[in-house]
């Protein structure tokens, strides 16, 4: 059995101002955690609440995002919108 704990991560730069934001449609989320794994800033986590499908949806931590869009690239449910600026 494989044990995989995510791709290598950089240390989040918490002192920098957020350059981007994402909007997650939590009703579409199926809690596959791919966005959490690929996010270089660890700006996404899995919520403790349930969505209407019964999954724990991904939720956005506002301060850290820089709008790279890797989460949206990997999201199988196309549930993420990315804003940058």
């Amino acid at each position, binding site marked *: 059995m494989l044990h995989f704990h995510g791709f290598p991560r950089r240390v989040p730069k918490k002192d920098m101002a957020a350059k981007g934001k994402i909007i997650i449609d939590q009703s579409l989320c199926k809690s596959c955690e791919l966005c959490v794994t690929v996010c270089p800033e660890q700006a996404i986590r899995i919520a403790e609440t349930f969505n209407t499908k019964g999954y724990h949806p991904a939720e956005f931590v506002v301060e850290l995002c820089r709008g790279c869009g890797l989460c949206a690239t990997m999201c*199988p449910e196309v549930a993420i919108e990315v804003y940058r600026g």
Partner: protein
Amino acid sequence: MKKVFSRPQSLKQTPFHYCPGCGHSIIHRLVTELIDEMDLRGKAICVPPAGCAVLAYNYFDIDVCESAHGRGCAIATGIKRALPDRFVFTYQGDGDMAAIGTAETIHAANRGERITSIFVNNAVYGMTGGQMAPTTMIGQKTTTSPFGRRSVVEGYPLKITELVAQLDGAAYVVRTSLATPAKVIATKKALRKAFEVQLEGLGYSLVEVLSPCPTNWKVSPVEALRYLEERMEKEYPPGVLKDVTKAAQKKEG
């Protein structure tokens, strides 16, 4: 802030029926993004398979003609010959394209039909519950090979992309993967080139996409990506297998 990424217009608002972490929905998004970007929405016709992606017509906001199991390339041939100005592509899984539809695929490629095939390879029959497919790797456990596939009994994995690459009618044959965001972006580039090859009328184009199937591999979605990268990419190395456009450029130069 400026919106830099949102749902493609050609992708309907319907929620996907695929399992968590499935690669099909990523490929659906890439295809619809390209249809938007290349302005093909009015003339694209998709031929979906029998398999997990059988309900692709629920998601693609373009014309779709369902095919019998494995006959995608044959039906796409008919559509393309009747309507040569349309953009016709098949969307097939490994059970559809490499098992029951091998003859149709090989002969459509050999005739050099001006169609594009998107071949989603996840090494199992996904829809029916994870049975062994022709593309299942040696040693891989499935419900019909519970001790792992053995070459003595079940034979070797069928590499249909390599077979198609040998045919003169094929213009662009490439294998890509969905294991990391960079590879997803590379997959989109490969799909764009395959679409352009068809629009230029150069011949048959085939894009094999190695795709995760966490449910039938019995791993988590994140572990499935690692399995894809460490195991499947060894058996099926990604890369361009045939590209006549490059050869054509060299001849001119």
